[in-house]
């Protein structure tokens, strides 16, 4: 059936130099702030939208509400003092900070973490990935008005947090992966309880699939929303599931294998339609992949061996001059630490490359044009951005 489609080229008029001719006093446009206090915004960030009718014609993102100056604070802390604060950089998924920081320091000071510690690190990273995706699935369904999914996924996330607590002793900030290795091995009976949790997650994912991905209304709203042209992937620095949903097989785990990923058997999850629905679907299948990886890790990992390499006295830990970049595949894309050491006991410069940095600012401002206001929240959540890693 042919439905009426409005002509979207009419407003606003483009000036010759490419900027938009938006005259707010003409009454055709409305300036609308979404956030920072807004339930449809992921975290603490705000969008300054200019809307015409029900459509967004211009958008400026405003970040910086969560800025704590980590990169500055780390310059005046010793290498081991930095370790407890790096995990605070990204709240929903702190372990990638710990791993990247630890690996960067190890590489510059020429330490090799023990093999068994690498296995446990991989385990923790995959557990963290499931946690993060669970937050995402709930948030995405919630942003389109389906609160029930969030209840289910947050419940199983709590179960996963229990496993974290058992392993590391903490719920959110684990501070477990420290430069040189990990703090402890697996507790007794961990594998069995982990398997129970994984089963629970699998059954929930089945429910989520039926209730969310087979739902006509969800499909109607998510399919076609926020289409990213594969040609935009590289110019905008898009990585992770967002890129994989566009058919670009970017997966750091496969491209630049780290930890024990070369010994694990997996294929990156791919999509092809590059819209919000495909991105959600890629992430859903990524959860299943992580479950599979955790099973592989628990089956293959060695059960004895050292957990910590010999590290220098932390009071006199001086890292020789040099610079390095360590990356890992977090649930949003490529997470990286650029560490510059100057030979003293304090890092010269630490720069955190969070995937949200490119997704939530430049890419979002581009995608949001001509989107209905009601879909802004859904679009933003579908990019899976966490503001704390933008402004750090």
């Amino acid at each position, binding site marked *: 059936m042919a439905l009426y489609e409005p002509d979207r080229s009419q407003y606003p008029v483009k000036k010759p130099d490419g900027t938009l001719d938006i005259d707010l006093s003409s009454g055709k446009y409305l300036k609308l702030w979404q956030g920072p206090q807004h339930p449809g915004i992921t975290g603490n960030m705000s969008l300054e939208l200019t809307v015409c009718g029900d459509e967004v014609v211009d958008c400026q993102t405003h970040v910086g509400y969560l800025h704590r100056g980590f990169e500055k604070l780390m310059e005046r802390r010793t290498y081991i003092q930095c370790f407890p604060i790096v995990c605070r950089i990204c709240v929903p998924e702190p372990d990638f900070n710990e791993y990247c920081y630890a690996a960067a320091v190890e590489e510059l000071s020429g330490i090799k973490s023990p093999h068994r510690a690498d296995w446990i690190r991989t385990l923790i990273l995959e557990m963290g990935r499931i946690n993060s995706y669970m937050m995402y699935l709930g948030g995405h369904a919630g942003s389109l*008005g389906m609160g029930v999914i969030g209840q289910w996924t947050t419940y199983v996330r709590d179960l996963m947090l229990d496993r974290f607590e058992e392993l590391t002793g903490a719920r959110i900030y684990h501070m477990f992966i420290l430069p040189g290795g990990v703090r402890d091995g697996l507790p007794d009976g961990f594998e069995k309880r982990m398997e129970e949790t994984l089963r629970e997650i699998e059954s929930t994912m089945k429910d989520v699939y039926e209730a969310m991905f087979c739902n006509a209304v969800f499909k109607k709203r998510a399919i076609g929303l926020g289409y990213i042209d594969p040609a935009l992937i590289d110019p905008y620095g898009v990585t992770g599931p967002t890129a994989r949903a566009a058919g670009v097989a970017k997966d750091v785990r496969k491209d630049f294998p780290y930890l024990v990923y070369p010994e694990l058997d997996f294929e990156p999850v791919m999509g092809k339609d590059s819209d919000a629905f495909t991105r959600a679907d890629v992430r859903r299948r990524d959860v299943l992949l992580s479950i599979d990886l955790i099973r592989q890790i628990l089956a293959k990992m060695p059960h004895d061996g050292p957990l910590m390499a010999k590290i220098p006295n932390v009071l006199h830990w001086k890292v020789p001059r040099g610079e390095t970049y360590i990356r890992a595949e977090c649930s949003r894309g490529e997470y990286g630490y650029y560490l510059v050491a100057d030979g003293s006991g304090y890092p010269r410069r630490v720069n955190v490359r969070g995937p949200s940095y490119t997704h939530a600012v430049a890419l979002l401002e581009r995608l949001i044009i001509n989107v209905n206001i009601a879909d802004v929240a859904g679009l933003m959540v579908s990019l899976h951005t966490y503001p704390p890693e933008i402004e750090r």
Partner: protein
Amino acid sequence: MQFDWMKIPYALLTLFIVINFGYLLNSFIAKIAARVGRRRGIPIWQTYIDVAKNYGLRTSITHGVMFYLGPVFRLSGGVGLLLFVPSIYGSYMFSNLSFAGDLILALYFVFFGTLGMALGAAESGHPYSAIGITRGLSQVTAAELPFALAVFSVALQYQTLSVTDIVAAQQGGILHWTLFTNPLAVVAAMLSLLGSMMRPPFDVVLAPQEIPIGPPTEYHSSYLALMQTNRALFPIAKLVIYMNLFFGGATDWPTFFLKVFLIYMWSVFVGVSFPRFRVDQSIRWFLIWAVPIGILSIVLV
């Protein structure tokens, strides 16, 4: 016709019963939604506490006269709707102020509250309210269309505009209900019900994520308490019409509670299992699915 003054206190008694029923039903429905999410949910008396708290707030600011009148209009829409249709068929006490042409009046009252709300929320000057209002009005218009068609179909079927007469015609066994004598009209009306109950998939007007809760953004303290009262009253009043027109009415209070509850459940179950439509999608949905059914029902009658 001689007006019977005794009807007024009786009508107020009905109002009292229905408001309490509405409060309890609202908490109960919140509890059901929580159970679907594997939660225990709010205590059953929570709505009473919320309303008491809102009346008990010390400050309340106003944005003008219409801002205050908005909730009042809305509440009077609900009260009016309830008072002019009979709650219990055959009972002198609870037949309220029904009269010969009350069906038309009821249709008017269904819309009245939303219009009042539009004026009030526009006065608050908040852009979210304005957006919520435009969405709300367009969606309610689209949603009421099939209902109006269904009502006309029923009125044609029974050749009367009095709700009491329509109920009377449906007495004497379940097969006399409009549900079975004119099923298409009932289907159209039930689809329309989804749109006007402000539950997913048609709650984009009040959606917390898409636009923080739309028209009531600026409402607080006693204004909000008035609206909560209305939120308890209005769905019930509306369901009373549905019950009377399509489901044979009620002859005593237990039947009344049961039928209203069951009709309400229809929108709740759809609500917990669907995300919400965008407003343009929901209007299209109504125009494509509900309106043709309504027209068909008129044609068949």
